[in-house]
């Protein structure tokens, strides 16, 4: 019996490698991000950072 490709799990479908690549890029960015906001520290004001 042929399994429809539309029923395949997403990670097994063609094109998912692009999704994974972009997720990897997101994770790479997160490694550089100051994550102190996860402890509810307020974000800096960008307009005040332009000095």
């Amino acid at each position: 019996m042929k399994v429809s490709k539309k029923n395949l799990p997403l990670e097994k479908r063609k094109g998912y490698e692009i999704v994974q690549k972009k997720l990897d890029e997101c994770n790479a960015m997160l490694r550089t991000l100051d994550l102190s906001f996860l402890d509810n520290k307020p974000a800096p004001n960008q307009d005040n950072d332009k000095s």
Partner: protein
Amino acid sequence: MLRTLTSNRMNENGYPFKLSREQLYYEFVSVSKEKQVQKIVLISRTDVAGIYNLALLDVLSDGSLCDISETNNNDLRIVIATVIKIMGDFLTKNSNSYVIFRGSDSRRQRLYSIVIGRELVEFSKVYEVYGVKDGVRYPFSVNNSYEFYLIKKKL
């Protein structure tokens, strides 16, 4: 033209959508007289607990996934409204989490910035909206460009 496409997203009717139980993704169908296009909003865990990556994907006729296809179904505003509703659904169910996303190309990135900018007043009533640039998270400002957008539901 762009103003028409991007105004009042939070009040726009969206397509019906359902949450997959097997994977963390939502599905909906973009409908026009010409065609129907299945779309997926995939929400993936990142390496940081509490931050989830959001991606909007087209499911092509062979079942493959694509984030850069031009659907050309003349329903951009409905699609964006649907994605916003999905994001809201996810953040309501995961109230202490952040969703992070960016456009799959510079044009989409600019479009998302315009949509967020236009919706910021309404958005800010419900969500904390940030832009990420050079490793720093800033409150979203319409006058700045960002590498990623980061959104969290207000508690």
